[in-house]
């Protein structure tokens, strides 16, 4: 019997098939980057726990009205000022008798209205977190010689205890 030579399968259409799949995935892909600001909400109010008394000087009061105008400690301010004011307030350590005693006691209170825009709120919130991050990083550098992200969990806790993030929110009518 004559041996027939095995014919090779034509792989030319392979590219077409692959292209078809490729285009399908190209169309369905949503390259959505998912970034966001994390926030832990306070647990639902527990009637058996008393509201702790906080001295007014330990509270930095930020009020935003329905037209996105901001008052910090009753003085007009813009988003650009928030970070510096917050850092000065947190690291006051009793220097200015009308500002916070120490970073552990410092509380920042944001009061907003129903008409306050989301972007204004996010911007202010972002600046406050940024202030805390700068301070935490500074403290981490001083104490451990590393930036906050490079610390072990234990060390991060020390830093977090030194600069706790106490941000209170409330709605005014």
């Amino acid at each position, binding site marked *: 019997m004559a041996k027939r030579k095995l014919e090779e399968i034509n792989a030319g259409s392979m*590219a077409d098939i692959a292209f078809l799949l490729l285009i399908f995935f190209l169309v*369905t892909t949503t390259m*959505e980057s*998912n970034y*966001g*600001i994390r926030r832990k*909400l*306070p647990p639902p109010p527990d009637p058996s726990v008393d509201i702790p008394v906080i001295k007014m000087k330990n509270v930095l009061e930020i009020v935003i009205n329905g037209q996105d105008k901001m008052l910090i400690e009753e003085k007009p301010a813009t988003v650009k000022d928030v970070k510096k004011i917050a850092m000065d307030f947190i690291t006051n350590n009793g220097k200015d008798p009308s500002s916070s005693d120490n970073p552990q006691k410092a509380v920042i209170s944001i009061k907003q209205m129903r008409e306050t825009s989301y972007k204004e709120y996010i*911007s202010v919130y972002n600046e406050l977190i940024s202030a805390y991050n700068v301070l935490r990083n500074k403290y981490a550098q001083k104490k451990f010689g590393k930036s906050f992200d490079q610390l072990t969990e234990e060390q991060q806790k020390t830093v977090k205890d030194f600069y706790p993030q106490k941000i209170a929110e409330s709605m005014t009518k």
Partner: protein
Amino acid sequence: MGKFSKKKDGGTPAISTASLPDIVFMLLFFFMVATVMRESGEKKLIVKMPSADQVKKIEKKGLVAFINIGEPIKKYQAKYGSEPRIQIEDAFASATDVGPYVLKFKASKRDEEKPLIITSIKADENVGMGIISDVKEELRKVNALKVNYSTNKGSVLKNFEK
């Protein structure tokens, strides 16, 4: 002379396309891996997220319950008006639907995954804080305290550019 003229007969040799499938496959695999099949379904709201720079990336998308807030798109404005609304999965919802949805989402996950669940609020930058704090109150009621405000990555000053 005859010796050299022979070469011209073949013309330019065709470029081998044998490696084309390989290249295409490479791209294909990239997109296959990068693709996340959209679970949120139809988009019924206009959502332009605000920018922020103190952001974290969401690692496990499967453990995130998304809540969209924004104006309805043109098509739905006749029916639902142009006031900001909440969209959960495919449907318009009110703030009171948020709690049951998060609980349902939580119930569908395995026990060890339950503490890792995050609720992500995807809101348009111009919606008022009223609707957002309504949603937050509902989340507090069902003890879903881990919240993520979805934003674009960028300076906050971008929010105030016209």
